[in-house]
């Protein structure tokens, strides 16, 4: 039987593929042979799957279209999966000058400052008039990356924790994806007896709308809510997936829905490119 061969892997479409990949764990078959389009969020999930399955060995069927295979390799994806993966043919040479993707791997809280600095320098070189919008991204990356060691790994047993951020400079928007496969929002909130037993849907609403945190300190929490409010105020889109739930902020509306189970928290933020180019706020 033929497996699922996605043509597009984006924040809107990647869920079905994710189910397929998980089904094959710890040796997932990541069939990208039919792939024509992908985004930062899909790359971030591929990083998670590939890294997580590293010892078992993820198997990648590379895109049949040469330009897509080259673009995929040029994101730097395979450079982060340094061992233990298999591809159906040798990786093509990456494109010179990169492809508009930046990948950051979180290995511990102490390295986050340097990662964010490198991203900030790149943003200010690419968008010198977008100081205000660049700052939104930098603050968001700071908050989301430090959430990985501070929340995603707390109480996590039986698997290593991986965390990545991927920034994509797309034609009409900038796309930031920050992902981990840790304990998830409900898992983190549930460590506080006040939130014990919350469902994923409740956790999403508590964290993203009410600004809840597992800490009782009133200064803690609120980072994801603040990011969501910034995204909403700037005509962006935000998607947060955790466990079997997902939160979508689009225009002024938000909704919570059910998705296939996947551990951790995966965040996608898209902001219009004009914010960065014209320096609007």
């Amino acid at each position, binding site marked *: 039987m033929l497996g699922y061969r996605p043509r597009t892997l984006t924040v809107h479409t990647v869920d079905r593929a994710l189910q397929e990949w998980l089904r094959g764990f710890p040796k997932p078959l990541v069939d990208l042979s039919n792939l024509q389009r992908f985004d930062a969020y899909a790359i971030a999930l591929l990083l998670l799957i590939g890294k997580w399955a590293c010892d078992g060995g993820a198997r990648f069927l590379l895109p049949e279209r040469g330009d897509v295979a080259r673009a995929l390799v040029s994101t730097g994806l395979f450079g982060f999966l340094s061992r233990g993966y298999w591809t159906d043919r040798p990786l093509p040479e990456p494109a010179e000058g990169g492809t508009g993707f930046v990948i950051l791997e979180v290995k511990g*809280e102490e390295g*986050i*400052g340097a990662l*964010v*600095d490198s991203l*900030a320098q790149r943003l200010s070189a690419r968008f010198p008039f977008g100081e*205000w919008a660049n*700052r939104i991204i*930098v*603050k968001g990356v*700071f*908050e989301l990356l*430090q959430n990985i060691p*501070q929340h995603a790994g707390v109480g996590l047993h039986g698997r290593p924790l991986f965390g990545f951020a991927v920034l994509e400079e797309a034609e009409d928007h900038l796309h930031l994806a920050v992902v981990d496969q840790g304990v998830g929002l409900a898992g983190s909130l549930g460590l506080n007896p006040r939130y014990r037993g919350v469902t994923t849907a409740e956790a999403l609403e508590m964290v993203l709308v009410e*600004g809840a945190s597992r800490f009782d300190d*009133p*200064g*803690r*929490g*609120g*980072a994801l809510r*603040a990011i969501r409010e910034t995204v909403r105020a700037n005509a962006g889109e935000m998607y947060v997936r955790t466990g079997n739930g997902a939160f979508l902020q689009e225009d002024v509306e938000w909704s919570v829905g059910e998705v296939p189970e996947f551990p951790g928290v995966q965040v996608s933020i898209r902001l219009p490119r004009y914010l960065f180019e014209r320096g609007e706020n």
Partner: protein
Amino acid sequence: MRKGFFNEATFSLAGYGARLGLRREGITVAEEIWRALARVKRPGVLRVELGGIEVLSGSFADAALAGPLSRLVEGALPERYMYVAAPDPEVVEDLGTKLEQRNLAMIALLPGTWDTLGYLSPSLREALSLVVDRGETTSAELAEALGISPKAAAVRLKELAKGKLIHLASEPRPVGGIQRRAISFILPSR
């Protein structure tokens, strides 16, 4: 602000980098800010200089700045105050959000003006403006200026002092007894 009344010190964040975002770094900086506050003789003011800072994220700002202010408001280190001086209001946006989350307010000196960050009710904001503009005032003067009762004025000043936004000094009343004088620790700049 009465010249020479406050002992003043400055603490610059620029030495920690242009982009400050990690809570754990904020915790370290908070300890240094606390030591700087403790070193200032009472009544003392610490100006936290944000010149050179491009990004101040909520987590860092909460730990480094809202944390020490919270301790002052709780009563530690009496007669010590702190405020931030920022070259750009956008830099202190997230600090304002965190202060609001903690139900605190802090004065921010901005180019050519000042503002309060965090939560402050309109009536307290009005009273604070008057104290800052005049440099100092008594509750009787505040009551007259705002057209409110002396008792309401005294309550407002007490609340501002509790929030570490002004200093309240006791002085003899000309007709006998003691009166409280509110003294601003920043210069009026608007």
